[in-house]
């Protein structure tokens, strides 16, 4: 449009059109200025989010091995990487483990998280201090807490089994990390322990935003604590709860450091998830193409959850 105006021969224009052009020019300049404010953010997003995602997608269609890093040659193989990982007999169990791990972790983090948030919402002495202490698991590096849990859950010498034995709750030790069915429960428990502070902090923030007079009104109307929660607190907390759950899904689906430290994916692959499989493919077997493909499957799973969340949100708004 601008180049078009440049091509028109200089001709005395009527004064009204001229003022219109000035306005248009000013508006254009304003738009450019607005655009410039966007530029840093856009450049950042493209560089650190766009490029890796695109690169990962491209990689998943290539035979990308250790040699590729030096030679740069990565032959295009189409869908072969996907076919390979999806047809592997390890994929089904890993997907199931991922789903179990995610659902159980979410439930286990959200419900106690909400309970604690409600608890700390009441004012009582030392409440603030206790609330900040609750954040401790979040402050520790995962490798540190993971290693500590690994010691605590050891079958013979771990403190957990020791306590259970001393309390006469059981006579022999529970194979927390070495039983094929118990190990998944253990990593879920550790992940729940890590995730509760996050849930509590966000839900507590959400509770703070609910006007106090609504609770008072409910009380005046004779609503008990349960009714108040059901009809006042929960409906107003729903948007926050939705965000907490969505972030929880995204964070949980990709968890691999906890699993790697606590069980290493074992015993016999019982705690192998899509995320740990992706890591192994890339960094143990140097099959970077397949590792990338597995990573993309993981991204798709997260996206699916995000869509469900958006859908649910829209329905909630319409209702």
């Amino acid at each position, binding site marked *: 449009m*601008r180049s078009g*105006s*440049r091509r028109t021969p200089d001709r005395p224009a009527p004064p009204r059109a001229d003022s219109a052009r000035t306005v248009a*020019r000013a508006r*254009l*300049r304003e738009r*450019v200025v607005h655009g*410039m404010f966007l*530029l840093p953010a856009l*450049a950042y997003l493209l*560089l650190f989010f766009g490029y890796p995602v695109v690169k990962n997608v491209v990689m998943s269609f290539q035979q990308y091995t*250790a*040699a*590729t*890093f*030096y*030679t*740069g040659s990565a032959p295009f193989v189409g869908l072969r990487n996907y076919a390979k990982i999806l047809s592997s007999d390890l994929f089904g169990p890993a997907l199931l483990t991922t789903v179990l791990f995610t659902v159980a972790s979410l439930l286990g983090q959200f419900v106690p998280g909400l309970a604690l948030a409600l608890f700390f919402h009441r004012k009582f002495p030392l409440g603030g201090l206790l609330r900040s202490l609750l954040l401790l698991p979040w402050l520790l590096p995962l490798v540190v807490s993971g290693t500590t849990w*690994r010691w605590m859950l*050891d*079958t*013979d*010498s771990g403190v957990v089994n020791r306590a259970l034995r001393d309390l006469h709750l059981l006579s022999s030790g529970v*194979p927390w*990390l*070495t*039983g*094929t069915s118990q190990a998944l429960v253990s990593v879920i428990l550790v992940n729940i322990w890590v995730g509760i502070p996050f849930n509590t902090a966000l839900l507590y923030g959400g509770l703070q935003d609910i006007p106090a007079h609504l609770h008072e009104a409910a009380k005046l109307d004779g609503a008990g604590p349960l009714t108040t929660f059901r009809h006042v607190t929960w409906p107003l907390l729903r948007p926050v709860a939705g965000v907490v759950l969505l972030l929880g899904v995204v964070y949980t689906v990709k968890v691999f450091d906890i699993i790697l430290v606590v*069980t*290493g*994916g*074992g*015993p*016999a*692959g*019982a705690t192998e998830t899509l995320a740990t499989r992706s890591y*192994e493919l890339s*960094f*143990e*077997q*140097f099959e970077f193409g397949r590792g990338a493909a597995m990573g993309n499957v993981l991204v798709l799973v997260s996206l699916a959850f995000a869509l469900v969340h958006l859908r649910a949100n829209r329905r909630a708004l319409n209702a």
Partner: protein
Amino acid sequence: MTSAARPSARRATILSAALALTLAATGCGGTGSASVGREVTTITALDYYTDAREHAQWSERLSACGKAAGVTVEHRSIPGASLVPTVLRQASSRTLPDLLMLDNPDLQQIAQTGALTPLDRYGIDSGGYAEGILSAGTYQGKVYGLAPTVSTVALFYNKDMLAEAGVAVPKTWDDLKKAASELTRPGRYGMAVDANPTFEGTWQFLPFLWSNGGDEKRLDTPQAAQALQLWVDLVKSGSMSKSVLNWTQADVHDQFVAGRTAMMVNGPWRISALNKLNKTEKLHWGVAPLPVRRPGQTLVTPLGGEVWTVPQNSSEARQAKAARVLACLNSSSQMLALARQYYTVPSRSTTAARYAQEVPSMAAFVQSVERSRARTGRLGVKWPKAATGIYTAVQAALTGEQTPEEALRHAQRIATDS
């Protein structure tokens, strides 16, 4: 110039500025620092000796060797787990160090990429080296890496516990099972290994597999099943904790030190720590070659150790200097010094023989190393797949998910999966 063109000109400036920024950030702004003509005064070296004491000792060694070659060596250590990823990244950005240390089973993988140079180019003599370590450093007929010293695993035992139970150091698998069960007490196991689902678990299983005639090329053999059955029996009988499924070699060492196991499979790199405890905690320990299935079988153990390499580089002068430092690290005197410092074994056979005479307690390791095999010796770059198959089988069998035979059939499928 029309005024309407001004915003577009400004936009172009902004765009080019942004582009320049992007290029600078991604490091495409031209390297230009590599000088071919100028004399080389410093070279860089990368390894995974992050332990403070070890790092300092290596810095000292590298700078001594650098001095002889007329260069100062900038020494950097990064954690073992991130070494290979770092090297791959450096390979793609052409920023590899001049001198690079690699764990020996990784060498062929890196050599395959073309990022390393063959050492015969610099006239480095690889004669007199033990067969195993040379095969680990060789890719397609050319030697790319040399290790000054090597190590392997052996059986460590608690002398007091064996004496108290009246048990002799086991020489065969039957001895081992019997000894382990007799040494087991409440709160204590007879034996400990690392059977975790990593390459470390595979590494500890190899001596049992190989000594019995098993082979990583064909995992579903009766010989391999017998080896796996031994571990299964030890766990099933309660002589070995089921936690071996989750223990690292360091954990196994801790169990041994805490008196929770009477015997363990571990390597000579534990000796300096154990020696200290010998004095303070009165832990009396001994070390012996690992048992074999029946008397007369030859013990074959996996070879451990780090090889030094000279990566591809734009400057031949730098490579030549790095090669001189590498040759110095592999000289007999350095080999002996390193071996004494870390309880490893010199990789040149004649030097090793001299060392065995000088340090009799290391004789068991010197003997074992002579016959030890490199993990990548047979399969080369396909080793990681076989290694994954092996630890998967060990895990499946020890948890009781599969019988050793089934587990090994599955392992073979993993190993040959393309």
